[in-house]
């Protein structure tokens, strides 16, 4: 199969969906040349630096029959648009009794590891998960990026796509023929019997590497990528933990009120899954600090394959 990058896969999804649906349009500071070339400056607009207005304008255009795509670029810049996200986009369908649909895609990059310091290294998806009314994807491969983005554009709700900065240049297999990946379906990336590692985005790759390390030590790890944060494929996650009896959740965000915390609760509050647990649940997350610039500090703050493997050894030692 042909191989393309995570970033190019995302662009392909936009090109295909914008070609398919004339009600889509794209707004971002600096318009992406591949989209401008194909769809022109009317549908693909470079905008002033005014993310709050863009985020709100998407809501108005969506409620008026369009399917806006807003690229915030970094999640960092979504924060100047938080009123429009929190008070408006997440609530408008519900608050007005479902009168109109608001199909919007908000895209942004998340994560650290590129020495960009606190403001430009953030993984705040749980802040958005805390709101009712927004769907969220977090792809870990080029194939998933394209398939999930296509579903996100076709969805009739506001969807936020969190795309990992560390994975933008990752190259992987992407089918040439048309496909989509439905929202809310996790993927078992590797089967195993001793411990379940639920990992997000870049950490999926670290978890797979950890599973290799563990295999050499006789520990069989199952690695699962939820791929969608809202809705969460709770059934797949629970089924795995019922099989292995041990759970580690790995994410680049800090642990407090995180997606990892939510996954831990969703999995363990199910009585049958809880009874199957043979060890405590571990979150392997970033330290709860703003992300520092210097390499010695940043590398210390983030989780990686070694920290995942260490956590797996610990839970194996528990029972």
């Amino acid at each position, binding site marked *: 199969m042909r191989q393309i990058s995570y970033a190019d896969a995302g662009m392909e999804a936009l090109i295909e969906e914008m070609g398919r649906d004339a009600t889509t349009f794209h707004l971002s500071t600096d318009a992406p040349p591949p989209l401008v070339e194909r769809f022109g400056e009317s549908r693909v607009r*470079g905008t*002033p630096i005014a993310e709050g207005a863009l985020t709100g304008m998407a809501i108005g255009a969506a409620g008026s029959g369009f399917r806006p795509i807003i690229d915030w670029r970094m999640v960092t810049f979504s924060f100047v648009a938080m009123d429009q996200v929190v008070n408006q986009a997440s609530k408008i369908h519900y608050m007005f009794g479902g009168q109109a649909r608001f199909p919007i895609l908000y895209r942004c990059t998340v994560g650290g590891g590129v020495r*960009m*310091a606190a403001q430009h290294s953030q993984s705040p998806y749980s802040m958005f998960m805390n709101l009712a009314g927004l769907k969220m994807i977090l792809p870990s491969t080029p194939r998933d990026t394209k398939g999930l983005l296509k579903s996100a554009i076709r969805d009739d709700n506001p969807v936020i796509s969190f795309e990992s900065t560390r994975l933008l240049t990752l190259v992987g297999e992407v089918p040439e023929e048309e496909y989509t990946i439905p929202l809310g379906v996790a993927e078992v990336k590797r089967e195993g019997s001793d411990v379940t590692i639920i990992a997000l985005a870049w950490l999926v790759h670290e978890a797979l590497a950890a599973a290799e390390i563990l295999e050499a030590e006789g520990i069989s790890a199952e690695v699962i990528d939820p791929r969608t944060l809202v809705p969460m494929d709770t059934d797949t996650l629970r089924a795995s933990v019922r099989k292995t009896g041990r759970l580690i959740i790995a994410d680049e965000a800090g642990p407090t009120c995180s997606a990892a915390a939510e996954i831990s609760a969703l999995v363990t509050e199910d009585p049958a899954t809880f009874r199957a647990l043979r060890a405590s649940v571990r979150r392997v997350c970033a330290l*709860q600090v703003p992300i520092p610039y*210097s390499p010695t*500090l940043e590398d210390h703050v983030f989780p990686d394959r070694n920290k995942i493997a260490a956590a797996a050894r610990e839970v194996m030692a528990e029972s």
Partner: protein
Amino acid sequence: MDISPERQREMLRLMQTIRRFEERASADYVAGDIYGTVHCYIGEEAVAVGVCSALEQEDQIISTHRGHGHCIAKGADIDRMMAELYGRETGYCKGKGGSMHIADFSIGMLGANGIVAGGISIITGAGLAAQLEGKGRVAVSFFGDGASGAGPFHESLNIAAAWKLPMIYVCENNLWAVNTPASSSLSVPDVATRAAGYGIPGMVVDGNDIFAVHQATREAAARARAGEGPSLIECKTYRYRRHTERPTQVDIRPAEEIDAWLQKDPIERLVRHLKGQQGQLTDEEWERMDREILERVSLAVDYARASAFPDPARATDDVFAA
């Protein structure tokens, strides 16, 4: 203008220090010794130095993502700046900030900022503090043409004008925001026009003419200190380099436009002025000054390189004040 020849030479030295510091920072970034990203101010030096030379020591400024020039112009120590870029524990932010986040509160430099327009309301709060304190301090916001379309610019100008805060808003209009031309983002040709909407003076100055920038700032500062409120100064200038020093950074600006601005270089202009009209600078003196600056920058690099990387355990320090 009543700026002594010594002061003028000092202004030149600061401008050239900014340029040489950034040339070195860029080279060391490309070589892999400096991480993340570096935004250069080269070409815009007359704005930072013109403004800061018209301020008092206790006056405060806030910067942008393109912050090295503002730091140096306000009197920051280039050893600690370079150490911060190198990610060392002796850096201004102990290696936590890097190029985009240098601050020195002791000299009234309230920080570079990664959020476009993010500093404008913060420095307006420093202006409020100055008004409450009543000691005649002024506060200066540096920001780009791109930032002038963002909410904090408009909200802050309105409040500052309504409350007559001792503020100077300095728009560095370098004609581009990354690869978006200001002409496509601005509803009016000049950012300064917007001052009228807030009932405050708005001036357009040649941002490559350090004396024009200095003079406009003096007048705005006098007005602010007299309790007459804020001013907006728009400095028309140009960045010589791409948006960032990242090798993959795309630059779509027309070559003719770049060339035309290179002809209006603010440093050469001041050198010409000092050499010609006043005979205050000889070729040898200028060469010596430049050599001294290069040596000084090289010492800053030595200092950075000799400093240790922070101990990983320091990552959890400073989340809260002790």
